[in-house]
């Protein structure tokens, strides 16, 4: 699946120790496994169950999602700027596939 997440950092450059806010939105059905189709069969669960954000290879924030997370999941969090490097956001699907997005932060 070639979904491109939309990621926004509130600043491209930050002073060391400053907080950087990350907002990210990804297109995904987040099928809860509770719904039924018109024939009455349960639609199998298919959600993004894990989210990880690393900055320069170090994990700064992660989350486990349950079916109660809305479709097209949105996530907003902050991290403390320590060193310049790539900000990599990864979502893991129930089927094992991954959605990855990347931004950059420069520490001045």
């Amino acid at each position, binding site marked *: 699946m070639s979904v491109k997440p939309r990621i926004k950092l509130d600043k491209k450059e930050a002073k060391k120790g400053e907080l950087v806010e990350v907002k990210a939105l990804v297109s995904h059905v987040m099928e809860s496994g509770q719904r039924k189709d018109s024939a009455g069969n349960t639609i199998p669960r298919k959600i993004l169950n894990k989210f990880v954000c690393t900055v320069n290879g170090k*994990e700064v924030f992660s989350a486990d999602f349950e079916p109660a997370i*809305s479709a097209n999941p949105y996530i907003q969090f902050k991290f*403390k700027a320590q060193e310049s490097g790539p900000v990599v956001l990864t979502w893991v699907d129930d089927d094992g596939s991954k959605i990855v997005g990347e931004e950059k932060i420069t520490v001045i």
Partner: protein
Amino acid sequence: MKLSFDRRQVLTMGVGAAAAAAFGLPVTPAFAKNDAEEVISKFTGGKKPADGKVKLDLPEIAENGNTVPMTVSVESPMTEQSYVTDVLVVTDENPRAGVATFHFSPASGVAEANTRIRLAATQNVIAVAKMNDGSFFTAKKLVKVTIGGCGG
């Protein structure tokens, strides 16, 4: 779960119990709709979380239960000595209690996360925060839902 009821809850429970008795249904406590209790006690290892430090920001009334914006934040200096490790969010009337678990570290700088959640009906959203010293804090917020968000 705090075992103190206000007047309204006691009244509702009384009516519920009376209705259940009238229809011959088993009487279940008002807070045991799903596995919220088990999920929380598994997270805390059986410890009872204290009130405070956690802030849950949700609308009082959600018109559409399919996407309800939720912000959870925990008061903490977020230093190597004292920080929030995990925050569990559950609901007490969705088909399954779990909503999300957020994992923080001192590198997070602040224990705060925002996402959008599904609520099947009017219910409580409960957040439980785990600190690095093994203590737990909790907060609860009631959200009124006009249109449920779990399909069906």
